[in-house]
């Protein structure tokens, strides 16, 4: 394959956003007839690279060559003309139009300005049959078909526009196992037709099943390009997160003695699962224990947390807690059981923009008391001051609007909000993402000291060091499955890496 010339070659790509280097000196090449996986954790620059390639963002520095000659991609149209087509994660077609209309919209076959419907439908049917082995009625509205078919129609549209390079941005995230196989079948067929496919996914198994080559990005930088059969899974994961195993081994362990898991049982999830988000799993949480959830992005960590909090409704299994009747069906149920949840999505699911720091802090406590048992203004001020001091919130002004605080301080306000309700279990989903090192250490220390006082934690983080540092026990997730539970002496980076990478 490498004796061929690459169809697409990007060299020294730089892209800056105010305050961030999204891409710095990234190389990327794509050969005809290959499936090339683009891998990286959150913020690695995958989507920026794709947006640069499709002309959504302009390039600050660097060159893009298509079939040996330089092209400029400054708009999506130019990129399409050059032969690059993209199918995004969320299908961006019109569900109320027919399949054929969706494929040909904007480029309908015309004669004297009149659209030749029959020809269009015939062409669409032939296109789907020949290139995608798909035999469906193209005159039905798109919404009559499953997401998997819709995805294929999107691919057909992309192929029809221009067919040299096809970018599939997480095409499998909303498909079930059979649908994924159907998609892979088609990808193999397109590959043998000589198409170059850029494939972005979070599922390691799928990368190893379909790809020929892998490019890894980390923090906007190019890590390397590898043949799939020359890169072991564990190496892939290590390169993605950018750590050497031996470095991880030498981590200072903050929680010196492992607490044995024989303490009082707090919650037991048995066979808990939700179709399309997490396969059924069992997990028991004990009093005063920090359970870490490790896994790559999209492995189902957040989904586990949301089920425990009742933010999503499970469709199988349930959660029981000794001495309490009934399950957890809504956040209110969870809060009644003294469970608290700091979402990873601080902006959308955490802070209330328009309110002050004080109001944000007392909100959960007030909500659990109802409207009429109001917390007096004096008490509110006391509580706000107390927690601003305790959590070291800056600026220390309770009447500041929370939207004007930095990410780390917003996170501390959210922690304060939940600590005020004196939870027995605090679920922290990426509590330290996007906040500075100092605040990060403060939050980790807080978790440890509170757990010694008997509070339980479910701790989610993309940073393995952090999970290792605070957890008494770690549940490892891969591809929406809970694959392993690790505790005690086994809790070392090697074991966890092995479990995360699998295979």
């Amino acid at each position: 394959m490498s004796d061929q010339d690459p169809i697409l070659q990007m060299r020294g790509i730089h892209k800056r956003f105010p305050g961030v280097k999204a891409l710095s000196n990234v190389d990327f090449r794509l050969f005809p007839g290959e499936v090339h996986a683009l891998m990286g954790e959150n913020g690695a620059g995958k989507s920026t690279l794709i947006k640069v390639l499709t002309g959504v963002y302009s390039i600050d520095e660097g060159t893009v060559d298509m079939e040996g000659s330089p092209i400029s991609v400054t708009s999506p149209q130019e990129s399409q003309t050059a032969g690059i087509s993209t199918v995004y994660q969320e299908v961006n077609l019109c569900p109320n139009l027919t399949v054929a209309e969706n494929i040909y919209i904007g480029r309908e076959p015309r004669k004297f300005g009149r659209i030749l419907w029959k020809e269009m439908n015939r062409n669409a049917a032939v296109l789907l049959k020949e290139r995608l082995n798909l035999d469906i009625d193209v005159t039905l509205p798109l919404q009559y078909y499953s997401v998997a078919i819709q995805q294929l129609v999107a691919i057909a549209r992309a192929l029809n526009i221009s067919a040299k390079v096809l970018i599939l941005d997480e095409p499998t995230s909303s498909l079930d196992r059979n649908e994924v196989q159907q998609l892979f079948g088609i990808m193999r067929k397109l590959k043998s037709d000589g198409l170059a496919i850029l494939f972005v996914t979070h599922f390691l198994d799928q990368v190893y099943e379909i790809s020929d080559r892998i490019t890894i990005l980390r923090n906007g930088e190019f890590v390397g390009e590898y043949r799939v059969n020359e890169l072991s899974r564990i190496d892939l994961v290590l390169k993605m997160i950018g750590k050497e195993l031996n470095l991880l081994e030498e981590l200072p362990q903050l929680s010196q003695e492992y607490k044995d898991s024989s303490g009082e049982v707090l919650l037991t999830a048995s066979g808990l699962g939700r179709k399309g988000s997490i396969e059924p799993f069992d997990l028991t949480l004990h009093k005063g224990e920090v359970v870490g959830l490790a896994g790559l992005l999209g492995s189902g960590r957040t989904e586990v947390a949301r089920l425990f909090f009742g933010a999503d409704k499970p469709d199988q299994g349930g959660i029981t807690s000794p001495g309490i009747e009934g399950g957890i069906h809504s956040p209110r149920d969870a809060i009644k059981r003294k469970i608290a949840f700091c979402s990873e999505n601080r902006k959308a699911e955490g802070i209330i923009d328009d309110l002050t720091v004080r109001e944000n802090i007392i909100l959960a406590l007030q909500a659990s008391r109802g409207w009429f048992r109001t917390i007096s203004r004096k008490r509110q001020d006391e509580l706000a001051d107390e927690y601003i001091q305790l959590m070291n919130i800056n600026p220390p002004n309770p009447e500041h609007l929370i939207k004007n605080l930095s990410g780390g301080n917003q996170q501390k306000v959210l922690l304060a909000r939940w600590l005020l309700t004196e939870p027995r279990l605090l679920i922290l989903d990426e509590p330290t993402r996007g906040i500075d090192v100092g605040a990060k250490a403060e939050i980790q220390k807080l978790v440890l000291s509170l757990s010694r006082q008997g509070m339980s934690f479910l701790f989610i983080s993309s940073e393995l060091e952090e999970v290792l540092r605070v957890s008494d026990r770690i549940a490892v997730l891969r591809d929406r499955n809970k694959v392993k539970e690790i505790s005690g002496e086994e809790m070392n980076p090697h074991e966890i890496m092995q479990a995360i990478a699998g295979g």
Partner: protein
Amino acid sequence: MNRMMKHYLFWPLCVLGALLLFNLLYSPDFFSIVLRDGHLYGSLIDILNFGAPLVLVAIGMTLVIATKGIDLSVGSIVAISGAIACLSISKGSDQSSLGLVMTAILSSLALSLVLGLWNGFLVAGAGIQPIIATLILMVAGRGIAQLVTSGQIITVDSSTYEYIGAGSLATLPFSIFIVTAMLIVALLLTRKTALGLFIESVGSNPTASRLTGIRSNMVIISVYIFCGLCAGIAGLLLSSNVSSADGNNAGLWYELDAILAVVIGGTSLNGGRFYLMGTVIGALIIQTLTTTIYMIGVPPEITLVVKSVVVLAVCLIQSETFRSTIMTRWKTRNYPGEKEVVRHVR
């Protein structure tokens, strides 16, 4: 000065002040108030009296808008409430009897509560977008009011009922007391209980509010009920003032004036923070404007145009974007090259 300009009542009060100033210059006796037969008379009193129903409706609307909702049905509720009250009074033998009037008032208020509950249920329970959910009652409610009045104007002859909208207490129109009472109720409910906090929270970020454990559906339903109640009382004031109920025209376009009052008062249609006092000022601005237009004798065929021009001006003054654009223009007016430089720096 700068801090004062940031206060939410600054611009509404400026506009109201400007309107009053205009009136002072145009007709100096605008501000004269005379005491006759134990009643105060004057343009200012008229504005308060005739503006009372609008203030009431706008108070209810404020809370609805704060939850990122809207209630288009208030005009129809105004009509229904007046129609029901007048219908039940007109059927009585002694129209002035206190018992009969009380029954009429209570039944029309009860119905307003039910109509508010209906709106709240459609929005929170059935998940219909507020503008559509309340549009249903806006259309159907007008029909109901016409059914109740059989398309006629029902007149009543009840001195007891007339007192609500036209009577006076301690020389002031009684309607002012009703409005003040409802304003105090609204302020107490939202500022002395946690309801106000919950309303702002739900309006600002519904997802986060749910995850915080706020019963957002309950909050949403209650604001629509409260809004329905306010509209119901406004309907009583209007119909009592003229001792008659007109199913076709009572409360027509009230929803639009009320929304305008809320926005002028500084509450954003995007929900979140709300300002009840701002709304009251906003409603008074609209009423003053209407009174002014009548007083200076604008020909009837162009009153709506004049009104809309003033409203446009008010909205532009309040728009932060517009103000900063004007300020930038003003500051850079002498330096034609500046824009070019700024663009390059960016």
